[in-house]
Each structure stands twice: as C-alpha cells, then as structure tokens.
C-alpha cells in the first residue's frame, strides 16, 4: 500500500476586495462595529456569474502548474462546497469539464466548513488504497450571492468571503498525509444553518412565504457556536497530533479555521502554538467555508513560510456541526 503525499497546492481569490467601509452603507452599521462583531477586516467577492467551479478551476490550474503536471494526470476530483454552482449536478462535474480532465470520477461532498478536510481524507484513502495516483481535492465557495445585503444581514453578511483552494494528493513512499480525524455532532446544527429550499417541506420545497421571511439565508447563533468551537478546535489539535504521534513542538504551522477568526486563533493558542506559528484564514479572507484551509496552505507554501519537509496541522469547525483535523508533512 502506497502513502499519500501533497504534490502541490493552489489558490484563487476574486480580485474584488470588499472592505467594512463598503459594507457599512449596505448594512447600516458603522465599519468599526462590523469589525467588532465579525472579527473580519475585509473579504473578497466574485463578479456575478462566477461560480465555485470557476474559482476551483483557477486554484487547480495554480496547483497543477506548481506540480508541473497537466490536467490529464488527475485520476479523481473530490470537490467540497456548500455553495455549489447550481443545485445539481455538483461543481466537481463542471470542474472536470472546465479543467479539461479525462472522464474521471468527480465526487461532490458536503461537510460545510470542515468540507476540505473531509475531501482531503477521502483523497488520502483513494491514494492509499491504490485506486488513484493523483487526486485533486478542492474546497471552493461563492458565499457572496447567498448573503443578505440589507440591515437584516448585518450580523452574518460581513463574516463571509469567496475563494477556492486546491491540493493535489499523489502516491509516494514517504507519507505526506500523516493523520486525519473527522467528526459530526448534529445535536445543535441549527446554530449555523440555512433551512430553505427544504425538500422535507411538503408539498413544495420553497414558497414565497419562506422567501419573504428570508429563510434562504444563513441563520447563525454566533455566541453559542463560538462557545462550542473554541474548546473543540483546541481538542481536535490534540486529537490529530496524538494520532500522528507528534507534539506541538514538531509542528511548523497550525492553520485554524472557523467562522470567527478570533475564536480560531484563541483555540490554536490554547493548543500550545505561539502566534507566529498560527495562520487563521478568516483574518484576511473572511470565512470561506470549504476554501479557507487550502487557500491558507497554498499561500504559506507559495510565500516560503513553510517549505519541503515542514509539518502543518490543520483544524476546522463549522456547520453540521462537523469538525476535523489533519497533519501534513510537505
């Protein structure tokens, strides 16, 4: 059985930066209050008509270029998103076409904010089982078209950004994916949910009444979610490091991903990391649910912050409620 290795990562964020000043007029809240409530200073939003598969294509092209590979090298796409291009088929199918891949499998998975780590774990299993020698794992989101741009959205809208990250997971002798842990606890999933369209609503999955009540927007109980996220992220660092047989000192960088970047940073600190070994994607991107971790990883690798042989611990927590961790050796 072969080991799985990280061949390359890539990222794509839209060029348009949306500041808190810009949101201020739309949401009827001052920029300082937006920063205070969300912990986010700025985010990127797409131009209308750009979907997660478009951002995913750019991130994948970036990763392929860094790996020196063409799209024909890819054996399987695993695409994680909570904001797909259309309801179905999945964004992975669109990506297969846009990237010019062979007629390979395009697996579309949903695990929200932890989605990329679920996709990465799946990619790892395919490679280790010998069923693929190059898997493209993608996390991509276009949240901006799902946000309420009126004062009613003031507590939710500033938190989210658009973007995509990609990782090529290949086969090798020396393990690169050292450990993964995945969890879901549905007990309080209404702390971060979006009820409609809802196939369980009889007789029709969405009616004007639901639209008028804004039930197609994210509803987030941030205080309760924060209280659950912080200790869970800290514990997940310990859990995944234990599975990898490594201590905090052996890790060069911790990428901590959660809706509120301040909570993510506190959780990583509590796990034992000093600030200069913590990266929180949301601080510069806003919350890009499935995209935050691979974008941050691609940026850290691209800037030379982490090099060949570096060990990276990634943890994510979010809707589902699902959370996950991974330890990588680059």
């Amino acid at each position, binding site marked *: 059985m072969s080991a799985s290795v990280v061949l390359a990562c890539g990222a794509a964020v839209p060029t348009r930066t949306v500041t808190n000043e810009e949101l201020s007029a739309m949401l009827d809240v001052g920029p300082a209050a937006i920063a205070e409530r969300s912990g986010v200073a700025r985010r990127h939003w797409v131009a209308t008509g750009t979907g997660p598969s478009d951002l995913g294509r750019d991130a994948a092209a970036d990763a392929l270029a860094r790996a020196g590979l063409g799209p024909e090298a890819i054996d399987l796409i695993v695409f994680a998103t909570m904001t797909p291009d259309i*309801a179905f088929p999945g964004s992975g199918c669109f990506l297969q076409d846009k990237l010019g891949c062979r007629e390979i499998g395009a697996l579309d998975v949903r695990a929200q904010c932890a989605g990329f780590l679920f996709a990465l774990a799946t990619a790892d299993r395919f490679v280790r089982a010998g069923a693929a020698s190059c898997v493209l794992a993608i996390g991509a989101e*276009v949240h901006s078209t799902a946000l309420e741009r009126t004062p009613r959205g003031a507590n939710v809208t500033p938190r989210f950004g658009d973007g995509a990250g990609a990782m090529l997971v290949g086969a090798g002798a020396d393990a690169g994916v050292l450990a993964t842990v995945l969890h879901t606890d*549905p007990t309080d999933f209404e702390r971060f949910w979006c009820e409609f369209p809802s196939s369980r609503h009889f007789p029709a999955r969405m009616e004007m009444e639901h639209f008028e009540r804004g039930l197609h927007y994210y509803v987030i109980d941030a205080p309760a979610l924060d209280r659950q996220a912080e200790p869970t992220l800290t514990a997940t660092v310990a859990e995944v490091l234990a599975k990898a047989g490594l201590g905090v000192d052996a890790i060069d960088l911790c990428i901590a991903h959660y809706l509120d970047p301040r909570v993510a940073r506190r959780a990583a600190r509590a796990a034992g990391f000093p600030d200069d070994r913590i990266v929180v994607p949301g601080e510069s991107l806003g919350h890009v649910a499935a995209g935050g971790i691979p974008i941050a990883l691609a940026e850290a690798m691209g800037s030379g912050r982490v090099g060949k042989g570096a060990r990276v611990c990634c943890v994510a927590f979010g809707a589902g409620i699902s959370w996950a961790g991974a330890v990588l050796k680059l």
Partner: protein
Amino acid sequence: MNARILGIGRHVPERVVTNDDLSSLMETTDDWIQQRTGIKERHWVASDQGPADLAAPAVREALDDAGVKAEDLDLVLLGTLSPDYDVPSSCSPLLRHLGLRGVPAMDVRNQCSGFLYMLSVADKFIRTGEARRVLVVGAETHSTGLDQTTSGREVAVIFGDGAAAVVLGEEPDPKKGILTTHLHSEGKYAKKLMVEAPTALCDSRVTPDMLSGPGSRLWPRMEGRYVFKHAVTRFPEVINEALEATGYTVADLDLFIPHQANLRIAQLVAMGLELPPEKMFNNIEKYGNTTAASIPLALYEARAAGLVRDGALVCLAAFGAGFTWASALIRW
C-alpha cells in the same frame, strides 16, 4: 482488506401514487408512462418528510440485518439530490434520528451515480483500515420539487421518493466482497439534466422568479433523449470496465442491477451485453426513479427474491446527471 455489504434496509413513504392518480393531476396516461419508462406506480410523501426522515427507518433495518449497532459505525455517507435543508447536509438530521454524536458524516452529491460513488468511498476507507463499519444510505424526497402539472409531466412521472441503506464491513477473503469500483464524469453535459436553483451564479442565489410556479428553476430540467442516448453507451462501457479489471466476462455474472432510471434503458443495455433477462433485476415499476436510493432498494428486493446467494457475482451500474456514471462488481 476488502469491504463487503453486511446488511441492507429500505423505507418508502406509505402513499402510493399510480399512473392513473397522475392523470388526474396532469395530462398523461398509464399507457404513455409505462411504454416510455416501465413505471406503474411510485411512493410520494404526504407530509413534511425529507430524505433523512425516510433514511432513518431504512438505516435501522440495515443495521439490524447486519447485526451492527449504530454506535459502532465509523463513517456515515448519505447520498441525495433533494436534501432536507440547504445547510447542513442531510447526514446531520440523519445522525440526529440515530442518536449519534461524533461519528464522521458527509453527504455525497452525485445524483443517480451517488450510491456507487459512496460505495467506492466506503470501500477505500475500509481497505485502508480507516473505518471498520461504514453506513451508506441513498435517500430522496423528489416529490416536493416536481412540477405536478401538465407542463412538468415528462419529469414528474419518473421520480419517486424513498430511501435504502447498506452497512459495510471487512471481508477477510480477498476473493469476496467489493472486487472493484469505477467512477466517471463528463461535465460538458451537466445542464442536460439539472436543477438550477439555488445557484451561486445568480445574484442573489434564490430570487422570487425561481420559486414554485410555472417554469420554476427549483424544478428539474431534463433533455430526455440526450440522457437516454448517453446512458445506453456508458452503461455497457463501465460494466465492461469492471469485468476487465477483474478478469470476468458477462457470462460469469449471476446478477446485474442497473440504476432504476428507465426500464427501456436497462433492457437495451442488457440486450447489448447479451445478458439473459433473468439475470437482471428491476423494480422501477413499483418505485419510479429514486435516484441515490434506487440501487440499494433493488438490491434489497433482489436478495428477498433469492437472487443474491452466497458466492453470487453481482454487477451494479449507474448513469445519470453530471453526467456521471459508475460500476461496482461484488462477489457475495
């Protein structure tokens, strides 16, 4: 270690909708529907019931059948194209029904090929020792997303609601269990069979014109002839791929279960493969197309009919929206 199916369960809503029932909602006839699809009746929900609600009893039956406790599951995969909510994925309400806290769960959104995509994922988790017991469940509540008037008849008559689940575990005999799986996609045809809304491509992703009403973008759109043409090509391709990978031929097969999309497609595929009709199992006449649930729902009934004996070589194959297509070969 190979993976094998330890248990199967299924559940469909009580309400049966016959072709004659449909002719009171839209201009259609029993003859027209049967001739084109082979469907006689389907089950549709009659109250607030999503895929997770339908899945829960199917999962309980599959767990009982497997002799596995819910708490012993290491991974839960749910396939649907008609999720309970927009966020989170439907595996979350399913876990709540099952009283599970902490087990990893994700949705797989691969439409008609969803069950086989999940089977392939489950197989890899078991082969790598990352999971010992995996639940794979396909579940759909299509009926709340169908145009049940004459303008939607080409699509509405096809789909049924239902759920079916399998529990997978380890198979110590390398010649038994899931022998091979094959997954494919061709996204250039993604819009030949789709539901557009909600769509990240529109600002905003849900607009009033997308809502239920004539031409709603919440309802599926299908270019049926296109799908048919590709299906009859891809089915034999992916079945032969599985046979070649394992060194078997069509003559070695004891049972073939195609995704239940259209009886005419299945019959053409079997004829093209020169597979004797008695080696193929279909139950679309009773359920319509239940998408992610259709293969395990058929497998359940094929086993009950005595067609899945110990040692049987079983081929499963699917084609559908994406386009995606897939196959699996199992030695029971």
